[in-house]
């Protein structure tokens, strides 16, 4: 190999390496895909369901293989159906973020906020709505609130933005919300979850929002690798 050829090779190597070392390399090399692990259970969380106008629900999936870890670029596709005929698809992701083996964890789809004295969560409700998020929970006094972010990748940016909202005292990523049906701690890394917006009113198919009315039943469905369909116990709209 001549010196000039080596220089050209070096330049090409450097350019390729610089591309792969850039912050967006992973996103460039890997687009979103779908995984299909065998699930032992599928449920609509009782702890995070507000089946009202402007509400939401969470769907949880529990892989049979407790060592299963969903890749950060993958999702698990489930379907939500209501007795009134609405039908929406939902991409389950990890319940706990960030997607890695060690380090501090937080709820992928939630953050918490504490308000200053004299302010309540309702004061920032228009800002929450403008961000495309919804309240998961608001304390009776309005001093504390949990906010659901429907895109796991947006949870940190939205939480950071909320820190400077008027009346907001403290914003933290949620670390403690484990519903009663949670698996033991060693198995939680494989836990799958995603939130879905809920509104009242007439059914609109596949619009990304589940429309419900009082008395409706909601079920989640998942097609197992074997082709069989796993169905969640029903959630009943009060």
């Amino acid at each position, binding site marked *: 190999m001549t*010196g000039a050829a080596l*220089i050209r090779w*070096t330049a090409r190597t450097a350019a390729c390496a610089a591309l792969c070392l850039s912050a967006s390399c992973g996103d460039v090399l890997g687009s979103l895909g779908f995984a299909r692990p065998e699930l032992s259970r599928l449920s609509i969380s009782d702890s995070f369901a507000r089946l009202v106008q402007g509400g939401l629900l969470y769907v949880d999936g529990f892989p049979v293989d407790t060592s299963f870890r969903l890749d950060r670029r993958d999702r698990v596709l489930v379907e939500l159906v209501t007795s009134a005929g609405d039908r929406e698809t939902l991409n389950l992701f990890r319940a706990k973020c960030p997607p890695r*083996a*060690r380090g501090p964890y937080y709820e992928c789809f939630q953050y918490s906020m504490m308000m200053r004295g004299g302010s309540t969560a309702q004061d920032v409700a228009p800002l929450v709505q403008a961000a495309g998020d919804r309240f998961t929970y608001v304390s009776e006094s309005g001093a504390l609130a949990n906010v659901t972010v429907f895109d796991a990748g947006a949870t940190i940016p939205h939480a950071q933005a909320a820190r400077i909202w008027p009346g907001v005292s403290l914003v*933290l990523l949620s670390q403690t919300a484990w519903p009663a049906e949670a698996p033991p701690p060693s198995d939680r*890394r494989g836990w799958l979850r995603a939130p879905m917006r809920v509104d009242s009113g007439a059914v609109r198919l596949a619009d990304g929002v589940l429309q419900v009315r009082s008395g409706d039943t909601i079920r989640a469905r998942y097609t197992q690798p074997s082709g069989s369909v796993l169905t969640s116990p029903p959630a009943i709209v009060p």
Partner: protein
Amino acid sequence: MCVVPLAHPATASGQACVDPNAVRAGGSVGISVARYSYATAFSVSAAIGSRWRGSVSVGTTRDRDLRVSATTLGADLLRVVQLGGTGRFQLCPQLGFAAEFGPRYELLTPDDDVRKTAWSAGLQGRLALHRTTAIHLSITGSYRVWRMTSRYDHLGVRLREVTDTYSTLRAGVSITYRRWLTLTPEIGTTQGLIPPDRGQDEAAPFGHESGETSLSLSLAIALGKRVAAH
């Protein structure tokens, strides 16, 4: 003179063990970027010496998910041992120290601080494949064992202190142009970290997952006068 070894595995370039015929005498400065599965590390460094070489480095490791950073300081000392008399092969025993400060998770544990220190010992090797006046091409490899102590504080009160041992293995290619500019792409892996699902980072370098393969790229500029080829 050598290009710079960076003390911490997050930024270690593994390029310290250079062929003295390939670079100038005096010192060098360098920059390095390394990409891990969820973090990116940048560092700058400076080195001085010939057969015995010392270097210092400062860098930052950025968590792309959590958007937090840790700062790393490092120091290294190594000895270049020529083998075979032809200058084609060098072995370099190496000692290092690194300190890592942070990150501070403002959205998770805003009142907690973490500080890590690590001593290391290892061996680097370099084999020259192609040598001309303009270009020196070599393959490189290194293995280092690290003994790290992590200290976790909450509002100034020590929560816990953990010490553990892990190792880093790196291999790459080094291209030196006219004895002053050296480019080193490398791959590396970290082994033996405390198993996951035990809570915090513990005694693990920030940004690393055990067993993951990382990619790094280092660029160094040698300073000083040209030395005669052996």
